[in-house]
């Protein structure tokens, strides 16, 4: 039997590469959840600053870099929603919006427009309880597998599957609009 080591297994990938590889995914995650380009820039910066702070202690046995970053992004967006300005000011190490030029602002707006459907989707299933919504967001909106979503949420795969199932059932039961008006991702998960 192998004796477990106390030291976390450190990532051998430099932080810069992790950033390069997953910037787009995290930007997508954030822009799907906010309609304000400045806020999206700030939150994206916050996610990576928090990731940098935690990078040394990151243990890759807990999941891939992307899954780990999604976890941080979830916390960042949630903590912003809970107590926006004050908390941000306390932790903000750098201001994302300060880094935007005109072209970036344009791209952020395009991005946010493109994610509008996904955002509407989030709003439509806001009737779900938070634990159920968390799972279905990650699977249906962010495109994670159930296994990855479980890791982001730090719950077991079985729990994730159950919650996903219950979320689908709740959405089917509570559906008041004709099924044709749902766009594809939600239609898929509620099928």
């Amino acid at each position, binding site marked *: 039997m192998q004796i477990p080591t106390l030291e976390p297994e450190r990532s051998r990938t430099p932080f810069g590469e992790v950033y390069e590889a997953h910037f*787009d995914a995290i930007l997508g995650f954030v822009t799907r959840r906010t309609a304000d380009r400045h806020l999206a820039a700030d939150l994206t910066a916050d996610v990576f600053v928090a990731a940098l702070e935690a990078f040394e202690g990151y243990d890759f046995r807990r999941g891939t870099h992307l899954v780990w970053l999604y976890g941080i992004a979830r916390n960042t967006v949630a903590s912003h929603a809970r107590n926006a300005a004050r908390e941000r000011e306390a932790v903000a190490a750098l201001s994302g919006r300060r*880094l935007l030029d005109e072209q970036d602002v344009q*791209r952020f707006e395009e991005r946010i427009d493109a994610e509008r459907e996904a955002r509407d989707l989030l709003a439509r299933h806001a009737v779900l309880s938070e634990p159920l919504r968390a799972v279905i967001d990650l699977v249906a909106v962010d495109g994670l597998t159930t296994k990855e979503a479980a890791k982001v949420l730090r719950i077991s795969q079985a729990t994730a599957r159950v919650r996903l199932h219950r979320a689908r059932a709740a959405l089917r039961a509570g559906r008041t609009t004709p099924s044709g008006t749902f766009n594809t991702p939600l239609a898929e998960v509620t099928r």
Partner: protein
Amino acid sequence: MNTPVGFKQRLGAELALLERARAERAAEETSGHDMPVAARRVFARPGVRRTAFVGLAAGTVAAIIVATSGGQGAQTQPVHAMTVAQVLDAAAVNAAKGPDKEPGLHQWVYTDNVVCTDDCGHRPSWERYDGVKRASLSKTSGNRNVVFVTDNHPQGPGKVGDQPRETREVLSRLPTDPRKLLARVSTDPFFATPGDPRSASMYYLGGLHNFSADPPLAVTPEAQFTRILNVLQTASTIPPQINAALYRALALIPGTKLVSAPMRDAAGRSGITIAFDFQDQFRSHGYLFLDPSTYAYRGYRLDRHGDSSFSSSFARVATGIVDHPGQVPGGPAPDSSSVVVVHPPKTR
């Protein structure tokens, strides 16, 4: 898909800076020694185990680090380097955001520089925006502070920094395209510097020589660097878009590089340092200092080596627009008894 490329690059660069600052802080906390900067930087690299070195003398530490990092091969490479282009791009983005406030014609532009040559001292000065008067602080024989106001009559054709309003007007007519701006600043005699020369040291001797009489010089990176630096240093108000273009133009000059070891400016502040090595007979080094959080211009330093080496540096510690000579932003107007207005003799 719709990636904000500039934002991505800048955020990456900021993260690299943060990462480096964290590593340096961690190394300092662990070492507790005043070890040479170069050693500290190796120390700070990921993969180099720090705890093993606690309590060793600095010299020994450096030797052991070399051995350790050698053994670890590629693992000891810095995580990702921030480029001078990224820093200057961030400086440009922030500069473009202003604020943009043109002073009134009879308002005064206040600047406080710390100037270091053999020793260091504050040099507060005031220029009336229309360029007609300037003021400085001086002590009377009774050791009383007085504000000396003098008329300002620049000789010959105008030069950048001579008169705030004229300077701003000329600057605002420059192209905002960095390549075109660099070409203009490099060739327009308005931007000629005392040093434009093959020798950076001439810059320091500004005003002692009539440079406009010199034959036109080839456009070298040295001359370009000096001219841009001269605009940043001497222009008291710069329109934001032009300020941004100046930083982007600086990034186009071959030879600028980011200094990895922290340097302090004349006022003792550490920040971002951009270096430029002059290919002149004195092997001069020029340094440009930027604020680490806003990237605003903070000053420069020039080191000359050779037979008589010297170093001079300027740090801009305060600027502002005030209504009276001798006044600092937010402060009261100086008492009229302490203001001495000096008129030159009438020639007509």
